[in-house]
């Protein structure tokens, strides 16, 4: 029986294992150094916030693994020996494999700041980070102030976490506005306001210079590069992005760049070794996607895809229309297709934007300025239907069509206020059109593309 060994029990590795099991009888072993069972990394924040217990983040009950004959092995892999087809653990134990899949995810990136390894400096990625946070910032007596460095999705989540325990937070963001490398200016500005409304001390255009230590080696304060200001704090969250967690194969024959280099079949240069999820790097980025896609959904898709290849149905990783989601404190965000911020959008991309006066809801629809082709949508505070936008993107609809049928895409709970009319009239006004917003139609929603 062929032995498939998967290093990493995150969403990529586990999805892969499940799908291999659906399609075959192969022996499957999942290796992890972090936890015994698969858990949802994106949910760690809710454990600290007290919404859930850690076991609630585990999508499968513990009997699931035995029932599906998926072996779980806890241990830290220090080396891959591809010539003997073995992986070697830190305690020199080893396992032989027929096919090896690297699904080791990411680790927080550090930029070599002075003091970055002090007690009380942490990322927010691993379960161990959560334990550290609980240790150094259990409440606002122990942790009088926290400083977060890096204005991305993890940074804002960490801010929300600490805020839930009433710990004052200073949030250092390098950019001139939160996440404006991804979000158009209006949206980014709206989120800035929302962050500040939650009593977060948001510092834009601010870089970290160094972290200072007290006599015992604990964090005492941080110094800001631009102003030299010193901010006293008890913990520092470094959330300046993540990078592939692949140090253990740096000296092997497996070819790497920032991540493990893979072709479209998710194969590495080394025979019978594959890489999926955050740690994989496409030799050539696919469409508008990044070469390394550190996103929950893409990890899952790579797992779904590679399972086919391993089960003798070799197919390319060919993801469909881009989508993503996040939540910024109380504002939910979804995106379908591609919307670029003004400063780095392609020259043909034009935006239609609408914002509610309460500053918690807005949408940006990107379209082609000549053909009016619908390119993508960012939606804040209004839930939208994935299937509908996926269909419109595949059908290459125009923005006029999207505006006209926008009600089909609404996914807010029943009785919520609807804004399609408002949105349509703004669009008409700006573009000299007279589109009538159509009522929601089940028939249209259910017609497959």
């Amino acid at each position, binding site marked *: 029986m062929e032995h498939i060994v998967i290093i990493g029990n995150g*969403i990529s590795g586990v999805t892969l294992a499940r*799908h291999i099991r*659906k399609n075959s009888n192969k022996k499957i072993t999942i290796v992890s150094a972090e936890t015994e069972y698969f858990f*949802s990394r*994106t*949910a760690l924040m*809710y*454990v600290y*916030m*007290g*919404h*859930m*217990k850690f076991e*609630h*983040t*585990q*999508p499968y*009950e513990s*009997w699931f693994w035995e029932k599906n004959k998926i072996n779980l092995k806890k241990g830290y892999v220090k080396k891959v020996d591809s010539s003997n087809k073995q992986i070697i653990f830190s305690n020199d134990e080893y396992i032989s494999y027929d096919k090896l899949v690297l699904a080791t995810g990411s680790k927080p990136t550090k930029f070599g700041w002075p003091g970055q390894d002090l007690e009380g400096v942490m990322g927010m990625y691993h379960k161990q980070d959560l334990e550290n946070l609980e240790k150094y910032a259990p409440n606002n007596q122990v942790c009088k102030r926290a400083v977060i460095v890096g204005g991305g999705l993890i940074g804002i989540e960490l801010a929300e976490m600490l805020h*839930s*325990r009433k710990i004052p937070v200073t949030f250092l963001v390098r950019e001139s506005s939160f996440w404006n490398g991804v979000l158009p200016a209006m949206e980014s500005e709206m989120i800035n306001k929302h962050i500040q*409304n*939650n009593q977060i001390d948001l510092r834009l255009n601010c870089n970290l210079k160094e972290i200072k230590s007290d006599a015992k080696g604990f964090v005492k304060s941080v110094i800001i590069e631009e102003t030299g200001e010193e901010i006293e704090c008890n913990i520092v969250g470094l959330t300046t992005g993540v990078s592939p967690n692949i140090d253990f194969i740096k000296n092997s024959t497996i070819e790497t760049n920032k991540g493990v280099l893979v072709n479209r079949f998710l194969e590495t240069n080394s025979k019978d070794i594959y890489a999926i999820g955050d740690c994989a790097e496409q030799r050539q980025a696919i469409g508008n996607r990044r070469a390394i896609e550190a996103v*929950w*959904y893409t990890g*899952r*898709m790579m797992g*779904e*895809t590679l399972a*086919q290849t391993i089960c003798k149905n070799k*197919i390319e*990783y*060919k*993801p*469909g*229309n881009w*989508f993503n*989601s*996040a*939540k910024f*404190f*109380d504002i*939910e965000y*979804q995106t379908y297709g591609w919307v670029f911020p003004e400063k780095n959008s392609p020259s043909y991309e034009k935006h239609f934007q609408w914002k509610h006066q309460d500053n918690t809801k807005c949408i940006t629809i990107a379209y082609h300025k000549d053909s009016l082709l619908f390119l993508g949508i960012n939606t804040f505070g209004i*839930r*939208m239907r*994935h*299937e509908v936008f*996926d269909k419109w993107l*595949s059908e290459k609809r125009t923005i006029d069509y999207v505006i006209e049928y926008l009600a089909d895409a609404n*996914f*807010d*709970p*029943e*009785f*919520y*206020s609807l804004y399609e009319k408002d949105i349509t009239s703004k669009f008409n006004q700006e573009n000299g059109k007279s589109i009538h917003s159509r009522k929601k139609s*089940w028939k249209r*929603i*259910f017609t497959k593309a």
Partner: protein
Amino acid sequence: MKILKHIGLVLFLIGLSIFTGVLFTGSFNLSSTELTSYVSNKGYKSELILNNLKKAVVTNEELSILEFSSRVREAYKDSNDHYDALINKFNEEKDWDKKGEQYQYKIYGKPHTLSFELAKIAGKGYAKELPGTLWLLTFGLGILGALLFILPNLFLLGKAGIKNNGIYLESSTNRGFIAWLVLVYLVLFYLVLYFMPDYVVNWTYILDPISKSLNGGLASQWFVYGFLYCIIMLVMATRMYIKYRHNKYQLIRTTSVLFFQIVFAFLIPEIMTSLNMPGYDFKNAFPLDYDFFFDWNLNSLLNSGGIGIFILVWGIILTLIIVPVMVYFFGKRWYCSWVCGCGGLAETLGDPYRQHSDKSLNAWKLERWLIHFVLLFSLVMTLVTLYTYFTGTDSLLGINSQWIKDTYSFLIGAWFAGVIGTGFYPIFGNRVWCRFGCPLAAYLGFVQRFKSRFRITTNGGQCISCGNCSTYCEQGIDVRAYAQKGENIVRSSCVGCGICSAVCPRGVLKLENGPENGRINPTDILLGNDVNLMELINNK
């Protein structure tokens, strides 16, 4: 704000202490005339019971309710024992006539009920003499304190949005010491209410004025329960209104359960009683309303003229037509989380405990066995009851009608629905009864699962498996197991409370009523991946 909250908590606890303490106040004794008139009203033929009771409670002693109750029950037992002995004796002597004569002297009904009725006449003390003052000190302080505790949340919780912060960090909502205390209090409350009503006779005095103004009569323990139920729901609904103020579905739904409890379950039956009609809760559908087809109810309805017949016909139409048709269009939520009284309490008082429902596969298995067993039990009981009602016999297929009715009322009606159903809120979640026991829920569940437009739609591939939906599902449905597969949630037990959708951080879940076609949509490959792969695998 925090100080206000603390003051509220203290006031509430004082109110609760007085409410509990008042039960032990007052003195109980009867005059000879009061007793004689009661006994003759009751039509007791036994001289013995009259004499026994005279000896026991016609006294100048100031008896506590506990002493009073124990004496009355002793008298009751002594009288019945006496005639039972005679029955045995004549039985052995084969003196059938004399044996037959003795039965008329026996007293039926529960000893605690006799004691309650006598105590209601016999009581003296603060509760009886100063009901207004005591109302303010118990209900008044309780309501004021609870509101002072709840209202500051408007500011303390922060901006509108899901704020489950700290739920698993606090004793009261994380099965800690406080939760167990609340459980013990609730369980004791139900035990006393159901089985020892005489012990709570002082509560009824406090509400006598309100009862009189509503239905013209004195308050019974059931009036106390109904009134308390409404008050608790009102207070805890304000908590819901604040907590979910960003979510219109929750606001409207909460208003709906409040309305049906206060108007349909409480006011209308009271007003009907005052008009000499049978008090009826028009929304309480059989088989949740398990005694609807009991002989005493049928007789009472048939003897109440036009309104009685109307209620009888309405009750049958409600169960056979209205309930399933509404479930077809809207799912069982229209009943369970919009109308039902049990659901109403669960969604208000029970909301802080919704996360405690067991999500394991084993719990789901147990649920299916138990709830369908109760449904079967209620149907068998009703069949036997109706058969014996129309034929005038005692039993059907060896099942004694009185026995099965008593057994059901005791085990299911009192223990399962009340003591366990509500008493266990703080530890086992707020829908223990609705999930494991309610026969109506089982019936609605069949319709919802097999013939309904309702589903919780999963939004394509957007699920991140975080688990908030499963954690906060009061019915113990592992919502995530469906959502992370991109599959709609179609489950017989879903009561459509809408909280999974509310707590989802990524906008993945939406309760909706749509075409039946495509409602159940198991998928292997989620939306967003290679279109060809999705087609290949999902259509295999």
